[in-house]
């Protein structure tokens, strides 16, 4: 069964550095998402992306964050200048449709640790 894959599984970065988290969505999916889960807290929506533009974003997704689909297969999340509070598990997801009951399929996540 096709899966969403995320790399790396664990990323350690110094505070203030830029980090790029990578995701390969399921190949025939058109809608892409990023979520994060800070340790001990709920999974939180960050952003959704369709047709090469952001379709919805949360209040967490400020100017420090950006998303891109650089080559038609990868979907990336960039954090420009990381802060300690960015330490979290980041999940990528994709779906065939968005405004329907079609589920979002999740990757294993990338654990981001900011030192």
């Amino acid at each position, binding site marked *: 069964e096709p899966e969403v894959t995320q790399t790396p599984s664990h990323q350690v970065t110094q505070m203030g550095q830029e980090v790029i988290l990578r995701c390969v969505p399921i190949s025939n999916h058109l809608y892409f998402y990023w979520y994060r889960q800070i340790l001990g807290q709920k*999974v939180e929506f960050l952003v959704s992306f369709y047709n090469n533009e952001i379709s919805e974003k949360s209040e967490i997704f400020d100017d420090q964050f950006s998303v891109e689909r650089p080559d038609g297969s990868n979907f990336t999340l960039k954090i420009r200048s990381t802060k300690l509070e960015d330490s979290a598990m980041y999940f990528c997801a994709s779906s065939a449709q968005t405004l329907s009951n079609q589920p979002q399929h999740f*990757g294993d996540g990338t654990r981001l640790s900011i030192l």
Partner: protein
Amino acid sequence: AQTVTQSQPEMSVQEAETVTLSCTYDTSESDYYLFWYKQPPSRQMILVIRQEAYKQQNATENRFSVNFQKAAKSFSLKISDSQLGDAAMYFCAYRTTSGSRLTFGEGTQLTVNP
């Protein structure tokens, strides 16, 4: 804003028994979708079951079923004949019909005892 609450941080069940995980939500919308996701240790979240709010009939997927009480804004998951492979974190999630974001509950860690 919509919120989802799972009041049981941990639950345990004996193998072959039945367990019910609770979920409540708050919304002013009349139509929406509800989901239960399962996350085994160090693995990705996978969809267990979904429910459309406009459907009165409770969704069922093999050993998994829901009790959807729209007026009470309650969406519990029942797992029958529990198996060791059911051990996981279970997340309840909500989505409006007009938006893309999933709103998650805190999660319930289910342990299945042999």
